[in-house]
Structures are given as C-alpha cells and as structure tokens.
C-alpha cells in the first residue's frame, strides 16, 4: 500500500515537471524568419535565439586586414570571450581595440554583455559606475529541423540599392572536431549607387557549428574595409561557472534610455 502511494506520488511529480517543462517550451516562441529583419517601416526586433542544453566557452578572434592603395596594410584585431550555460544564458566580453571602415574608430575598451532569457533581459555592464544597463529581449527558438539561417552578409542600410544573393550552401565539414555547415552570400552595390564608378562586390562566408549552434568560422570581404576573418578557438563543452551569468550584487540595474524618436 505504502509503495503504491510512493509510485503514485512519483508519477504525479513527474507529470507536474513535464507539464512545467512543456509550458516553458511553449512560452518561448519560434524565431521569426531570417528575412524578417527590421526595415524603416518595421520596428526592430529584440529577438534573441535561445539555445539550451549546449553549454560551452570559447574565444572568438576577429581580424580585419585593410590594404591601402599604396600597398600598406592595416591589421585590426578584436576578440570576444564567450560563455553559454545549459539554460541558454550567455556572457560575452568584447575586447575592442579599433574598428575599420570609412571612418575608423579607436576604442581600446572591453564591454561585458550578459543575456538572461529567463529574466528576458540583456545587461550591459558599466564597471566604472557599477551599473548594469538593461535592455528587454525576447527569447525565441529556431525550429528543430529547420536550419538556422544566420548568414550576416554585408550591412544593408535602407535606401541603398544593393543586390544580395540568396545564401549558397557550401556543404558540411569538421572544424576542430566540430561538425559545421557552410553558406555564402554575395552582394553587389551597383555602379553609381554611392558615387562608385564600378560595382562593389562583397561576399560573406560562414561555417555554423551544428552542435555548438554558433558561428565557428567566417570570412567577410568588402573592398571598402578589407577582409575580416573570424575563428572560434579554445572551445570547451563544459558547464561554465554560474557566477559569470549574474549581475554583480553591487551593481545597480537601470533600463536603457529610450530612443529619442519615442520621446517625441
């Protein structure tokens, strides 16, 4: 009799846990299609892809080489130290020295960002004044079986005439033991669009880790900025320290200032 009660209690507990887990899954919507990016008419999306049950830590290194007309080369390197726990919380530390482009920017600073899908907030830490600026996020899941289309490609400012090819699949291979799937996007700015005599050709290629569910390697070529190569290294598939995903106790949380256009 006592054992029957025990079994029924266990069954009920399992049922409650199952229902709770299902409710959690249901509360996270599917991610919108990749083409549904923000436009001038459409408000920006705060969707953040939620990946659970796949903890890791790694170092992403991004190196941009710009070749000047006189043949000289400018090499810029920035890094992203990144962690993700089994619950899908992430921490990224961006160590930025400089960013190239038509107007290069010297930064020499490190920025820490924590995404907490459960709290539905992104925290941008400001160590000098012990403030965590909060930004609301909307976690979403990429449908199982549907290959996430995360190809970045060139920036596509609204109003700029640009032809962007659909992503071309490059097949699968292994990078440092991680199975990756490749895709490439080609883009062209037609002659005359920005005062250019000839069309400007750009290409973006990336290799997406099937298990890690992040970009493991990428190359972006743009004659205006040069070639950017990104590679993930020091990959560890262990559960990171939970402290990394918490805002320090002595920090004050403040919401991000609203954009001016919403104040008008």
């Amino acid at each position: 009799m006592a054992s029957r009660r025990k079994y029924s209690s266990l069954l009920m507990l399992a049922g409650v846990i199952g229902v709770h887990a299902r409710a959690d899954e249901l509360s996270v919507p599917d991610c919108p299609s990749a083409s549904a990016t923000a436009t001038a008419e459409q408000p920006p999306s705060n969707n953040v892809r939620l990946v659970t049950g796949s903890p890791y830590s790694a170092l992403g290194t991004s190196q941009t080489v710009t070749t000047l007309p006189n043949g000289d080369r400018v090499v810029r390197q920035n890094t992203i130290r990144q962690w993700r726990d089994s619950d899908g919380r992430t921490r990224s530390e961006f160590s930025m020295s400089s960013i190239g482009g038509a107007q290069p920017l010297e930064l020499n600073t490190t920025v820490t960002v924590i995404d907490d899908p459960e709290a539905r907030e992104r925290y941008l830490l400001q160590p000098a004044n012990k403030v965590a600026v909060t930004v609301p996020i909307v976690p979403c899941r990429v449908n199982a079986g549907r290959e996430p289309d995360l190809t970045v490609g060139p920036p596509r400012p609204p109003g700029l005439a640009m032809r962007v090819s659909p992503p071309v699949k490059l097949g699968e291979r292994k990078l440092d033991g991680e199975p990756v799937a490749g895709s490439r996007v080609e883009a062209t700015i037609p002659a005359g669009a920005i005062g250019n005599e000839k069309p400007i050709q750009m290409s973006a290629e990336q290799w997406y880790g099937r298990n890690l569910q992040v970009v493991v390697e990428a190359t972006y070529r743009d004659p205006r900025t040069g070639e950017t190569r990104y590679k993930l290294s020091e990959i560890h598939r262990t559960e990171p320290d939970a402290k990394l995903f918490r805002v320090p106790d002595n920090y004050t949380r403040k919401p991000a200032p609203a954009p001016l256009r919403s104040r008008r």
Partner: protein
Amino acid sequence: MTNHPETHPQLAHLSNQYARDLAQVAPSPDLDARVADLVATHRPVAAAAPARRSRRLGLYAAAAGIAVVAIGVGILIGMQMEHARKIAARNAASERDAVWPPADLTMWPTDSVSFKVPAEYSAQGTLVAVDPDSKNTSARYWIDVVVANDGTFRIERIVPADPAQKKGGHDGVAPQVQ
C-alpha cells in the same frame, strides 16, 4: 757656526753675531712656570674636546642619515602614490569610456550586440572613443557599433552629439538615435 766659503762677508758677519747672541740666551724661570701651568691646566680640556666633538659629529651624522632615509622614503612613497593615482585615473578613464545599448538596432537574426560609443576626432583625423564626462576638445559624435555573430565589428552610423542631450540620460549621457 761655520760659514760657507762663498757666503757674502756681510751676511757671514751678521750670522756670526746672531749665533753669539743666541748662545747667551738663558731660559726665563717665569716662562718655564707659565708653560708648566698651561700644560697642567689645559691638557685635560684638550683631551676631552675631540671625544665630545666626535660624539656630536656621530649624532649629527646619524640624524642626517635618518633624515636622508626619511626624505628618500617619502619621495618613494610619493612617487608610488602618484604612479598609483595615474594608473587609477587611467583605468577610471578607460572604464568611463562606457558604452550604451542603442534601443533601435535589431539583434535578430545575427545574434548581434550593439553599442553606442561617444567619440571625437583626434589630431590624426581618426575617431577616438572618449570619456563621456570629459570636456569636449572637438565636435562629439555618437557611434553605433554592431558586433554580429560572424565576428564582424561594424560602425553602423555616426551621429553628431546634441549638446542639449549631453545631460539627462544615464550617467549624464543620453543616446542619440535616428
């Protein structure tokens, strides 16, 4: 007293006369008494003075040494404090180069992170991130930076900062957006 054969006769004469006078000189008993008295009374004083003087000199030397060491330690501590202050100021300045999230840049579908950075043009003509609380040395701009999941760091837009909006947001800074 014998004179050299080549000595001038006049000089030889004077020299001989001085020798005779010197032979006739007898020490005065009064002088002897005075000398004895001087020796008896002044010897102890003469003997004690160098010892005291050397002790005093030793003390002065020790005091001067301590003073030199104290001054040296003071200078070292001062240098260390100044160095620490400079480092702290530099760190604080770099930390104050804080960034803010622009509220109107999409994070999807690139798992991107965007920052808003205050910057000014340097003498070399490049944009340099600045302490938002520092006084403008030239026109200030807000730089929207987007870091995408493919590791590209991009300047999304550059917007001149509105001085009227400098104060009023977080930490005295409000972001500029389109």
